[in-house]
């Protein structure tokens, strides 16, 4: 029952929110709904009976598809991340004026429903459905509430991802046609009678869809533009949770379905990921635009996670699990701060900032903590994850680990450069009148900072939670 609730709560409240006319009540309903979802997600983590974590009814018997939702450790973890993120996002923007707010919050909740569905689906056709449905709300959110170039940029993003998912759809149909009984269930798909070369071809159809979503070099070109032009709340959803869809899909679908092909092409994919990491890091170093800087830093982090997934090392898998959660928390924190700065100063150019530490001490402290978490300093949550991923990468191939390791240094360079440009130096006319961040955003950030530090000091609960997924992956390989 829990999986259904996780989808239905945001779906129904989202539809209701559209009917409101007052911005205030829409905001409150959205926040309440997000908290309710968080409670259910939290319950799913504590709740042990497996029967409550599975939902299965007949949907399209003629086609062999059933509406099956299932939660394993990774699903729980990502649903929890989604559950935590939305209240934080709503809290952070609570004091901001949004034009036609009911529509905005309605679409936000619908996108949450879509994301939950992606993380829960255990039937390929259901998965494809939610994969697309998570995209449509974001399309409308960015196109209506985004920045100046929003329409063209969102369009590019939409067509890019739609193309990927259509390729995946053909792969799914092909696979199910060869599976026993023409079923779409994941267990049946793994048993599909296919030759080696067919599998290798299908592997790429799936991988391209996931790579576009993550995004992996050279399919990343939609991302910096989309992050920059979207309203910040949507950017948080995209970079905090939506990119995890790609990683999640690799773990849930790609690796179990095509273990041999994954091993065969591991080097190619790791190479692309590492190139992407370095490339994104170098661009981030040169960035003068705060939002684009965070966007590129996000590409670099995702690249490492993708590379780690293909090393077939237990420690790397475990690292990815931790890092998926940590990256979500960190990047949402960074976006909240970036948004607060932009709203304060009216600019996102680093060259026009400086001296904010004098005017906004709380903001400065929070930015430093989040920045250090982004660099993966020990005692922050991403240290554990990155350490384990590099460990796995090192065992897989020392050269790749060494090359990828450069990105750690580069991450420190661009993050510290950003902190320095924003917080220190003399005050200038733009920053002269700055004040501290709004109180609701402060609360949201406070929660995130607690998560950063707790995750960095005691990550064991997260490891326990996702252990079953990692074990399943290891036995399949």
């Amino acid at each position: 029952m829990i999986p259904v609730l996780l989808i239905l709560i945001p779906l129904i409240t989202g539809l209701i929110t559209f009917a409101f006319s007052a911005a205030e009540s829409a905001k409150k309903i959205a926040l309440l709904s997000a908290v309710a979802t968080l409670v259910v997600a939290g319950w799913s983590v504590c709740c042990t009976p497996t029967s409550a974590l599975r939902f299965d009814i007949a949907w399209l018997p003629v086609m062999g598809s059933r509406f099956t939702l299932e939660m394993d450790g990774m699903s729980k973890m990502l649903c929890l991340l989604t559950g935590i993120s939305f209240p934080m996002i709503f809290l952070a923007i609570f004091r901001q004026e949004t034009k036609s707010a009911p529509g905005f919050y309605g679409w936000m909740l619908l996108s949450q429903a879509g994301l939950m569905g992606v993380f829960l689906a255990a039937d390929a056709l259901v998965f494809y459905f939610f994969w697309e449905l998570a995209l449509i709300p974001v399309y409308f959110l960015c196109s209506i509430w985004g920045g100046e170039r929003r329409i063209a940029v969102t369009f590019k993003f939409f067509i890019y991802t739609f193309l990927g998912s259509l390729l995946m759809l053909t792969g799914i149909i092909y696979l199910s046609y060869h599976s026993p009984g023409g079923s779409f269930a994941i267990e049946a798909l793994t048993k599909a009678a296919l030759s080696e070369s067919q599998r290798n071809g299908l592997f790429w159809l799936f991988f391209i869809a996931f790579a576009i979503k993550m995004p992996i070099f050279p399919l990343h070109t939609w991302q910096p533009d989309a992050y920059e032009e979207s309203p910040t709340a949507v950017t948080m959803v995209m970079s905090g949770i939506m990119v995890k869809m790609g990683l999640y899909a690799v773990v849930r679908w790609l690796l179990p379905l095509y273990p041999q092909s994954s091993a065969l092409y591991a080097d190619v994919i790791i190479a692309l990921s590492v190139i992407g990491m370095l490339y994104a890091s170098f661009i981030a170093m040169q960035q003068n635009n705060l939002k684009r800087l965070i966007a590129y830093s996000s590409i670099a982090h995702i690249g490492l996670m993708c590379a780690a997934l293909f090393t077939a090392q237990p420690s790397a898998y475990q690292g990815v699990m931790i890092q998926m959660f940590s990256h979500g928390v960190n990047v949402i924190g960074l976006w909240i701060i970036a948004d607060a700065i932009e709203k304060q100063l009216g600019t996102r150019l680093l060259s026009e900032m400086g001296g904010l530490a004098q005017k906004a001490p709380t903001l400065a402290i929070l930015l430093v903590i989040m920045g250090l978490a982004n660099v993966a300093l020990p005692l922050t949550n991403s240290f554990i994850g990155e350490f384990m991923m590099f460990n796995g990468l090192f065992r897989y191939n020392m050269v790749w680990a060494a090359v990828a390791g450069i990105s750690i240094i580069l991450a420190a360079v661009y993050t510290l450069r950003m902190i320095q440009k924003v917080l220190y130096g003399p005050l200038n006319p733009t920053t002269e009148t700055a004040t501290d961040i709004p109180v609701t955003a402060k609360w949201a950030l406070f929660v995130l900072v607690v998560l950063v530090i707790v995750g960095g000091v005691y990550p064991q609960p997260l490891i326990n939670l996702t252990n079953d997924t990692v074990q399943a992956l290891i036995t399949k390989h």
Partner: protein
Amino acid sequence: MNAIIFSALWGLVMMFSGIATQNRKTITGLSILGLVLLLVINCLHAYGIWVIKMDTKDALHFDSIGLFFNAIAFFATLLYVVLSGKDIENTGVHAAEYYALIFFVLTGVGILTAFNGLLMLFLGIEIMTIPLYILTGADKRNLKSNEASLKYFLMGSFSTGIMLMGIALIYGATGKFGIAGGVTLAPSTGLAVRPSFLEVGGMILLFVSMCFKVSAAPFHFWTPDVYDGAPAVFTSFMATIVKSAGFFAFIKLFEAHTAVLGDSWNILLPFVILITLLIGNITAVFQQSVKRMLAYSSIAQAGFMLFALYGTNDLSKEGILLYAFSYSLATIGIFAVLIKLKDYSLDGFNGLATEYPLLAFSTSICLLSLAGIPLTGGFFAKYYMLSAAIKAGGVFWLVIVAVLLAAVSVYYYFRVIQAMYFKTGAPTFNQPITKAFQWTLFGVAVLIIVLGLFPTLLLNFFYF
């Protein structure tokens, strides 16, 4: 049989109603009544109740799929008249005649879903298309409408000539007008007898003429001009109900016959599908007029529907029913809005969402369905077509090309959504948008979503 006779009779009723009354509202009401009766009488037939019993000497053969397709076509026509009846009245001065012609077209549809021989196929096609030549020229003071009508007539007769030639060749080879042919096995060896040159040639000519009728490339050149030139309200009818009926006949004709064509079929079909998809999608991208864009989009959709020719099982028939229904619903919906607009270009849609949110929402659902986004009927329609091709095997590359081009199609469908939602403007209408119209269109949108969630609801009907 019920439907064929009844629609022909009701066509006559409509024609004479023009003499009895000048009130156009009454005439539209009468035709709606006729369509409802037609739908009921057709369903009665499906349940085994013949209102009009007649021995057709096996020239017509009624099966549940054909009758179900009739029901879809009649229902779509009903929706079309309910949504756009006012525009039919306002097109010219002969509202009653237009409705009469529409009923005659439906007679042709009834024959096409039941034909059991090439002669009946020919009759069905002719009965269906000749009224359309007139409807295309309905706006007789408009030069473009006249041009379109003439063009359609010339091209149509040309393709009919090709079809007749094909039928003649097949008759010459087999001595029959039947379509139950297929490959015969030689008694001594058990191997397939090579079909005669005449028969293969006849089949290819039939294929070409059917491609003409459903506007598959490279025989599509009439489509954009005719669809663009005809009064928009009749374009809507042509692009949906008539086109789907053409496809139904196409598949019925070829499902048992591909073996005769042998290897040439494996070259012919992928080639036609490929260039239909390419030309339809790529050209649609560059259109500024939504009406013309929809004309090219109908070519692109035809490319997808052609995949049904790959299935030799029920999958492709179910698929074409679903495709016909969801495509017709969506296209009728968009046209219903387009017809009311003064400006047919993309800019004409600017800012529609701010003034008429419900209307914009319903139109968006129709567009999403055409693009094949999940949760709409269009998704499962495409899904069935792709499955048919994948299961047939050997053309996976074509499936990949098709989905790449489906992504292209998102570009031009979404441009309309962008205009409605993200651009500012004040759309001007030919006539006031009534609440009833908005809610009917909303009903269409809901129907599309229901089809997208439970396509089996529709398909279960057909196993009644």
